[in-house]
């Protein structure tokens, strides 16, 4: 991190695309319903990443996060992502 750089924090959510089987989500849904915790129609299990970037500006940080999501954190055949900036 150089003197011109700032810290930006993001949360990235990755979830399976519609049509991809999610056996873990299905098992969780069954457990919820069997244990009468609620009447749930569907559960999808995904992943959450917290990323701390050091960049010259917000625009640059967002560009990096998008590249990380597309290149590594998701496989576009089965997953999609959303990200948002967080303060701390």
């Amino acid at each position, binding site marked *: 991190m150089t003197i011109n750089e700032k810290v930006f924090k993001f949360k990235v959510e990755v979830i399976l695309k519609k*049509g*991809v*089987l999610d*056996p*873990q989500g299905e*098992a969780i849904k069954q457990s919820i319903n069997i244990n009468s915790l609620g009447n749930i129609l569907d559960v999808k299990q995904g992943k959450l990443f917290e990323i701390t970037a050091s960049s010259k500006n917000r625009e640059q940080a967002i560009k990096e996060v998008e590249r990380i999501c597309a290149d*590594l*954190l998701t*496989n576009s*055949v*089965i997953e999609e992502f959303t990200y948002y900036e967080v303060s701390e």
Partner: protein
Amino acid sequence: MIWHKETTLPKVDLVVLPGGFSYGDYLRCGAIAAKSPIMKAVKNFYEIGGFIIGICNGFQILTETKILPGALIPNTNQKFICKDQDLIVANNKTFFTSNFELNKTISIPIAHHDGQYFLNGPEIEELEQNEGIVLKYRDNPNGSIKDIAGVCSKNKRVIGMMPHPERAVDKELGSVSGLRMFESVISNF
């Protein structure tokens, strides 16, 4: 044997990506290995028409690098499955299956947790049209779409499969179907 941190391949006829839970299957199976320094050289090798086989985790790495289409996701029953598996040779016009008759049933062991092959509707049709489905499961153990156990690239020079042919190379092991595959490779050079 070539270390994953290498950046160039020596002069080779065939690259084999073996199985084996690279990086503990973190993130997605094969996802982090697909970014290993050596994989750039493997991708170049594919682009110049090199022959490549990916077995199990090696197959997952080939899909993560987009050398092969599709993705491998957890088995529908969420269990690690380790057993002998009947397969059907769906394409015998590849360098790896040319010693088999079309539609022949062969037995090769599987040993995986994330072996369910997935590909979207339009792309699966394209794969079928290109004769990209090489091996199918006779009794689908993991929920793979169209019972797919192994696929090949458009140029038919790259093959990925979840079953382990290297574990079926001696009668004492229960099957020699894997040996037939490696003999196919040799007879094509």
